[in-house]
């Protein structure tokens, strides 16, 4: 952390220089440290919004907030070393393993749930129900395999899974449940939703992995397939469920979205960390905010500021410790 000290020394020098010149510095109600508190941003809108709401609240309390782009999983290296400080969205469905590994190092902290609820499952557009009336029950899938097929997979159906890195165990699920489907992996969710939009425009067959909170289930009318309900035993114990020889014969877990932080930051900015812990939103609020940005094309900052203005009571209670 040698450089950090050097930077802060220089910053102090610059600040004192500014004072000598008689320039007023903004009044900041006694925050613990004026060092940059770095929040990570990733590449999906929802995370961008939660992070900017948090950042805006911290700034109002006088903290020196910086946003830094970082990869969703690769950021743990930075959170452990203190290069990055707070990550606002770690999904149980996609990031649980990486998060647990990182917590084990003792260098990161679990900062609690965001109140948002991750749903991800096999999804189809509403018009497919005409061609496959048995849905949303998963048992209907095999009867409709032909309807969901593509030339290169026929007579098997085609299921477009999420990126391989967002472990979803779809290959295993298809095999365990005896589904006559070929699992194709999209490299990124951008490619996946491009295909969904294309199919939707033509009212063509589509069966793929869709998650919420996200703009897609808001923009496109459709439903999630209902698999046998997820339990931990289903993933760990082959004997569980309809297939006695294989695990994964059930749906996907639905789960929390948590905040994670650099451990030493809790000593450096106790009140800011408290505020991050207090941060809570629900899926409806989030869905509406995402829709305003992605579907109506408004700017993130604008949408965030409007929320801040309209919900003063909510966020003031998060940051109560600074008053």
């Amino acid at each position: 952390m040698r450089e950090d000290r050097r930077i802060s020394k220089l910053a102090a020098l610059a600040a004192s220089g500014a004072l000598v010149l008689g320039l007023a510095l903004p009044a900041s109600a006694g925050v613990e440290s004026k060092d940059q508190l770095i929040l990570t941003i990733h590449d999906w809108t929802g995370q961008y919004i939660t992070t900017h709401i948090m950042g805006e609240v911290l700034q109002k309390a006088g903290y020196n907030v910086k946003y830094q782009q970082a990869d969703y999983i690769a950021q743990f290296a930075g959170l452990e070393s203190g290069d990055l400080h707070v990550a606002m969205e770690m999904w149980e469905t996609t990031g649980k393993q990486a998060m647990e590994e990182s917590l084990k190092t003792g260098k990161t902290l679990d900062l609690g749930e965001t109140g948002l609820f991750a749903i991800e499952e096999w999804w189809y557009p509403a018009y497919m129900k005409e061609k496959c009336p048995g849905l949303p029950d998963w048992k209907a899938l095999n009867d409709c395999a032909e309807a969901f097929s593509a030339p290169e997979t026929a007579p098997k159906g085609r299921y477009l899974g999420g990126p391989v890195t967002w472990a979803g165990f779809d290959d295993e699920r298809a095999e365990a449940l005896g589904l006559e489907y070929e699992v194709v992996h999209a490299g990124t969710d951008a490619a996946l939703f491009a295909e969904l939009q294309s199919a939707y425009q033509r009212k063509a067959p589509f069966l793929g992995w869709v998650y919420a909170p996200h703009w897609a289930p808001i923009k496109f009318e459709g439903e999630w397939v209902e698999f046998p309900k997820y339990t931990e035993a289903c993933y760990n114990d082959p004997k569980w469920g309809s297939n006695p020889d294989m695990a994964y014969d059930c749906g996907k877990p639905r789960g929390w979205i948590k905040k994670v932080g650099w451990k030493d930051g809790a000593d450096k900015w106790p009140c800011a960390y408290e505020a991050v812990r207090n941060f809570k939103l629900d899926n409806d609020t989030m869905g509406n905010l995402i829709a305003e940005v992605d579907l109506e094309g408004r700017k993130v900052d604008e949408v965030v500021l409007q929320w801040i203005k309209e919900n003063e009571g909510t966020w003031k209670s998060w940051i109560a410790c600074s008053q």
Partner: protein
Amino acid sequence: MSVTGSTRALRDGARLNPWLAAWLAALVATLLVYQLRDAWPWAVRYPRAWNVPLSVWISDFMKWLINDFDLGLFTFKELTRSLSWLLDWPLVTAKGLLSSGFSFSSDPSASIVVERVSWVALIGVVAVMGYKAGNWRLALLVGGCFGYLAVFGQWDSAMVTLSSIVIAVPLGVALGLFVGIAGFRWRRFEAAITPILDLMQTVPVFAYLVPILFLFGFGPVAAMIATIIYATPPMVRVTMLALRQVPDEVVEFGRMAGCTSRQLLWKVQIPSAQPGLMVGVNQVIMLSLNMVIIASMIGAGGLGFDVLSSLRRLSIGQGLEAGIAITLLAIALDRLSQAFANRPPPEHRRQELSWAARHPYLLSALGILVVAWAIGLVWPAMHIYPETLEITTGAFWEELVEYINVNFFDELEAVKTWLLLHVLIPVKRFLLQLPWVAVIALLALAGFQLGGWRLALLVACLAGFIAVTGQWAKSMVTVYLCGLSVMFAALIGVPVGIWAARNERAHRVVQVVIDTLQTLPSFVYLIPVVMLFRVGDFSAMIAIVAYAVAPAVRYTDHGIRQVPPHLIEAARAMGCTRRQILWRVQIPLALPEIMLGINQTIMMALAMLVITALVGTRDLGQEVYIALTKADTGRGIVAGVSVAFIAIIADRLIAAWATRRKRELGLA
């Protein structure tokens, strides 16, 4: 293998061509190994138990390097972090100047004391630079490019991108120049760095992003370092080549004039090598802008981030506008740097002229800055381009793609399905079933025929590395995807190149098209392609062909234009028709050059692999991408090096062939 092929081979073999006999024997042996696949399964499919856990070793080494390596006074990580702290300064300064302004405080809520350069002023300044370096047409072009940024609402992001480019490019050029000079001075140094340069150019960037993040921290500096690693190698190569090509007479003259060796280098050799060096500068600029998207994934922000985030929302039009902004920045910077390099040497003027009269351009640029700043104080539109005047064509592009999608999907689908079932899938199956032992042997045989036993040993070792580290199946998928893409790129690119070489107007149009294809981020057209052709190998192949076709066109065009005119004269004198001249004289003589173009096409195709992994291919590119998202250093580097080795095998074999052929044609 068809029957006619083998009988023809037999007939030729009867004429006692030893190479043909050797190839025939090798192919028969391959077939034999394949037939014996039940007895010797290890010869067909590389056994998992033989894998060398190199990726684990690399990851462990990396951990040690970051956590424990102590250089005595400080640790290795402290060293790299200080370096990134140092590099942060110019970056922050450039960003303050162009993008954020200066507040002289680490607190972002502090008010800005010095405003950034306004859009009017910057457009004015680049136009003056264009006029100084070239003429009013260049001024108009450069000013127009920057005008686009303001009018289409790309200004803020473009300035973030520009501020990292204006630091990364000079650093890359300077670094490349110095390493190149060292390579020029000491042959042994050149021999040592050549393989490193090969790796720097062919290992996919994603493979080394993770270690860079560990060592240099998250943020724009890490992104800039990755950009420099990627963009510098051509500068090194070009420097060595250009310095060697300085005519001996010039160097002799410098020596006779009594130059010291330092004077000789800086006053004689480098100035006379300047046109060549500028090719390197151009490459550094182009490659740096190529990196904008990837750099934005690890925190550089700017236009790259805009492209990615609009495409995630499927705002194709917005993504395209941001992508075009990157292309226009590349064009403006490239044309400006070319013009500055090609300026005639300064005339010696009489000294009595005043300072102002000697520097009219500098003065007018300063004037623009001051005037724009002053007007900006009372009229804010001068300073920040008013949002109400911004235009966008976004909706148009989305409607266009939707129209094509709804009306022509079935036709497109039919073509795609036919190609998939009759070309792509059979080739993939064939390659995956080839015994790895036989592939290595055939490669070695090709190496031996084209370049002797040293080349044979090299290609066998490189291919062996891929097998030993357990990458064989994914490598074969890579070879299939790239091989077919290169074939299609050649089928399109070579005829277009021939056409452009023989028709001046076509030449100009084609130039613009391939320049755009090379600088427009491929992600921009990848998403519409996925909408029309769905996720899978076919979409990936279209993207690879679009990106990799450029060198096939360029080199063919160049090769045919380079055919000595007296040979064409001679052919014409003998009464050849235009068609005969093309087929009997121009194409055969240009073939070595065309093959080098194909070689470059292969390199570009391999470079695109990582991007196509984003639309779901299952090859080495995907392996590298997975390693990136899991922050697994070893896995990424091993897969990345395997990609590089495929590239190097192809490069060495083709280059050996081209050299031999050139010698036979008397061109070398």
